[in-house]
């Protein structure tokens, strides 16, 4: 993360007309009338329905797969199995903030030698109806040799644990192990001298925390529609956070040239990181390639829980040493994260974020990437960070209590600021943690007195935010309107934010800009809508495209007026002479320039192809009040406030929405959400009745406070806001429950049975 990179923009202090305003959302009307087309809403003539046969075992060797009976069923047009996907070499490529390996991915989308988790795909059929496809699945005969399985992360690390892959040797340990294990990797981050740091501490607290895997819980199941042509090209429509990554993965897995695969992103019904990788898309393509008919596959909710990519559960040991007056001297942590059936958990960002909010000289963080018989994890908002920061923020809170210091003051005293050296590498540029904490202290919420059995907790969080490859086109249409073409799916109002920025640059009304999310054939590569990058990176490219369009329009006018380009300026949506020296000309408005474009050189457009750098880190703090029913362990959330630095809120409503949605996901993760496995290694709660995400009736209003400490690397100061809100709430909830009960819990979820157990244990 390099914050010093100069992108050549300067923040503009003139009055802003659209940036920061709650403008209309261009896709809004279609989304309140039911017209917007999501993943499952597409159909094509001649379409077939795909269904996937999934493993009932947590771990088993596949001895044979006999599909002949299924193929013979009337209405069945194709069956695919492992034999239809060529094996791939081990090769890591970035997917969101995480890496994926094609050798693993080809095995994850369709089991090869073994099934590695309950729900692992084993075969797929295409048939003329869903009913026939389901019948056909029952006719596929798979012979398994059931193997012992392991679900828990600590058990998976133990010697003698059932092995998922006998060719996996732990990376990052010396000497290199000679025996395979379930531990894929060891990482370490070091700064200063941890031993002397602890030696200087007056209070040291060391604790171990446990969290369970949770699911992103997007309401829209994965869905796609693939259509292969006899000429070797294919079209794919799907619900995704990144059509270009889908194209990259699918072309690799199916074996085709990138230019031959055109991926169109549908409207997306939530992703939160879970729609950054592929599951059903390559299968639909493979079935279509066999039949040359369009294939539609939609996951059931049960499949979403069993067979997509939840996030890791983790076991985290944290040790922090402080002085009597509250200065943090040393921080140590060891993180064990579940990767699922293939390597690649989010333990690395977990390690990097763990202590990033604090200015500490001595830090040591060790991370382990551990496999077990669960679905391969995917990103879930700020992947990895909530798990480690939850543990750290609980320890910080307890230490503050021990020395009798206000928890906000304690954080203020140690808060990272401009110039703070992080353990993972860079020194921070301007960051807003201090401002966030000051805003927290000033909240009315902080002053509300609490009743019996009530408690208040705070927690803080940090996320890097990212930039990345981005391409934008801005077409100036003949009538003076504009079409803004971006490649980032709109998960929560980003079209509106892009239009705000483009309108601001162009000095025209925002309503004149129509934003389009392009398919992969329209623009060059765009990275995902993930990592809180869209408003930052796609925003930068939009601004650059707008500036490029302005320059092109100035050129046309300069040519028309026959004066140098320098002598034409752009103000309030029109080209004007820079000064009276340039000559006497009436300003030419954008529509006027557009109208005569054919005569001045043809169509006008602006472009940007960038690799956005200089994302500004995001800090946030959550404050929550809870009430605990001491007889049942039930926790009620009474009040909640999110305080976060947005850099600049381009569209405040959608920034608030990110804060509120993240906070409620924290509440769910903290109180009830978890993957529950039976002794047999099968998932027991693969539906929304037993995977309990928060309901409207569970919650109060979620108050927000947007802090704006501009990111100098973006013309309007944007940092990105999507990830940070999922971090602080886990510890805030835990600290609030602690405060209400006068005891400390160290596991999530804090479901009623666990809370009641903690109460009983404390009262003995």
């Amino acid at each position, binding site marked *: 993360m390099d914050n010093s990179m100069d992108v050549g923009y300067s923040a503009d202090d003139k009055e802003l007309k659209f940036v920061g305003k*709650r403008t*209309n*959302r261009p*896709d*809004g*009307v279609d*989304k*309140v*009338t*039911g*017209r*917007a*087309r*999501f993943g*499952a*809403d597409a159909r094509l003539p001649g379409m077939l329905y795909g269904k996937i046969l999934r493993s009932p075992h947590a771990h088993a060797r596949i001895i044979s797969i006999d599909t002949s009976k299924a193929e013979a069923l009337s209405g069945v047009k194709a069956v695919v199995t492992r034999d239809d996907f060529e094996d791939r070499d081990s090769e890591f490529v970035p997917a969101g903030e995480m890496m994926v390996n094609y050798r693993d991915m080809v095995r994850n989308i369709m089991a090869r030698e073994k099934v590695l988790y309950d729900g692992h795909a084993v075969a797929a059929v295409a048939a003329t109806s869903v*009913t026939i496809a389901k019948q056909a699945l029952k006719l596929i005969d798979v012979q398994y040799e059931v193997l012992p399985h392991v679900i828990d992360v600590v058990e998976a690390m133990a010697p003698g644990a059932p092995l998922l892959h006998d060719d996996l040797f732990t990376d990052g340990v010396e000497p290199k192990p000679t025996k395979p294990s379930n531990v894929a990797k060891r990482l370490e981050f070091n700064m200063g001298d941890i031993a002397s740091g602890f030696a200087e501490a007056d209070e040291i607290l060391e604790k171990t925390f446990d969290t369970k895997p949770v699911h*992103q*819980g*997007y*309401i*829209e*199941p994965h869905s796609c529609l693939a259509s292969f042509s006899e000429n070797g090209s294919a079209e794919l429509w799907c619900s995704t956070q990144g059509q270009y990554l889908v194209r990259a993965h699918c072309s690799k897995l199916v074996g085709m040239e990138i230019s031959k695969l055109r991926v169109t992103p549908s*409207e*997306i*019904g*939530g*992703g*939160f990181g879970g729609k950054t990788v592929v599951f059903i898309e390559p299968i639909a393509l493979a079935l279509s390639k066999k039949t040359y008919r369009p294939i539609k596959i*939609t996951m*059931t*909710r049960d499949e979403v829980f069993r067979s997509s990519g939840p996030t890791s559960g983790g076991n985290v040991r944290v040790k922090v040493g402080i002085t009597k007056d509250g200065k943090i001297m040393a921080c140590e942590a060891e993180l064990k994260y579940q990767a699922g059936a293939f390597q690649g958990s989010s333990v690395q960002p977990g390690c990097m974020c763990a202590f990033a909010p604090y200015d500490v000289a001595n830090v040591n963080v060790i991370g382990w990437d551990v496999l077990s018989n669960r679905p391969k994890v995917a990103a879930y908002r700020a992947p990895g960070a909530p798990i480690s920061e939850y543990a750290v923020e609980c320890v910080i809170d307890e230490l503050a209590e021990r020395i009798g210091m206000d928890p906000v003051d304690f954080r203020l005293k140690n808060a990272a600021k401009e110039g703070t050296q992080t353990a993972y590498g860079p020194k921070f540029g301007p960051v807003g943690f201090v401002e966030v904490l000051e805003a927290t202290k000033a909240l009315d919420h902080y002053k509300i007195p609490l009743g019996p059995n009530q408690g208040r907790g705070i927690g803080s969080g940090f996320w890097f935010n990212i930039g990345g490859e981005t391409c934008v086109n801005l077409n100036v249409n003949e009538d003076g309107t504009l079409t803004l073409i971006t490649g980032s799916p709109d*998960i*929560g*109002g980003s079209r509106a934010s892009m239009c705000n920025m483009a309108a601001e640059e162009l000095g025209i009304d925002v309503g004149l800009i129509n934003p389009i999310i392009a398919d992969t054939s329209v623009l060059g590569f765009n990275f995902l809508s993930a990592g809180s990058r869209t408003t930052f990176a796609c925003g930068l490219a939009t601004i650059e495209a707008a500036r490029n369009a302005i320059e092109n329009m100035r050129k046309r006018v300069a040519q028309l007026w026959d004066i140098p380009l320098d002598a034409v300026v752009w103000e309030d949506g029109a080209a004007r002479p820079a000064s009276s020296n340039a000559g006497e000309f009436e300003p030419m408005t954008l529509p006027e320039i557009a109208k005569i474009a054919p005569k001045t050189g043809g169509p006008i457009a602006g472009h940007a192809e960038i690799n956005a750098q200089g994302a500004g880190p995001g800090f946030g703090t959550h404050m929550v009040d809870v009430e605990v029913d001491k007889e049942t362990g039930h926790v009620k959330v009474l009040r909640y406030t999110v305080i976060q630095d947005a850099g600049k809120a381009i569209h405040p*409503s*959608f920034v*608030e*929405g990110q804060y*509120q*949605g*993240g*906070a*409620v*996901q924290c509440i769910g993760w903290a109180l009830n959400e978890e993957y529950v496995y039976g002794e047999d290694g099968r998932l027991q709660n693969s*539906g*929304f*009745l037993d995977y309990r*995400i*928060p*309901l*409207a*009736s569970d*919650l109060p*209003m*979620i108050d927000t406070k947007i802090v704006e400490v501009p990111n100098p690397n973006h013309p309007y100061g944007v940092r990105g806001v999507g990830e940070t809100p999922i971090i602080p709430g886990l510890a805030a909830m835990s600290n609030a429950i602690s405060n209400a009960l006068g005891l400390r819990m160290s596991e999530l979820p804090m479901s009623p049975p666990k809370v009641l157990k903690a109460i009983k244990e404390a009262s003995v």
Partner: protein
Amino acid sequence: MAKQHVTTTVNNDEFEFLCEPKASMLDVLRDELNLTGSKEGCATGDCGACSVVMDGRLVCSCLVLGVEMEGKSIETIEGMADGEKLHPLQQQFLDHAALQCGICTPGVLVAAKALLEKNPDPTETEVRYWLAGNLCRCTGYDKIIRAVMDAAKEMRAA
């Protein structure tokens, strides 16, 4: 599997179709009648994305058989706006940014409309409980509740 003939009314339009007896009303609406505004989030009654009103009662269309539509009158999200004039709830949802991804929105709107027809002046708690069967993972519900309360106010004044 013999299909059954069904005649029904959806958003005041009469439809006739042949229905697989096992198909849900949601399947019929989406696949047979091409009314894809009702969404499938679970198909088991847990998420409310498929909410419709059938003969005046709010139901999950995934929990009703297609053949049960016979003779019934059904209202879906597609029938909520009057031409280009949005229903006050729809407009309030836009004004409040009460949707992020928008997948839950059709179901929430249909459910909220059913609430306001029954109870034009609900308390915040009543709105929250009425909508408990409509899951939204994006918004944290805050803006949804505010939009419903404001729409109720607007409709009472009208």
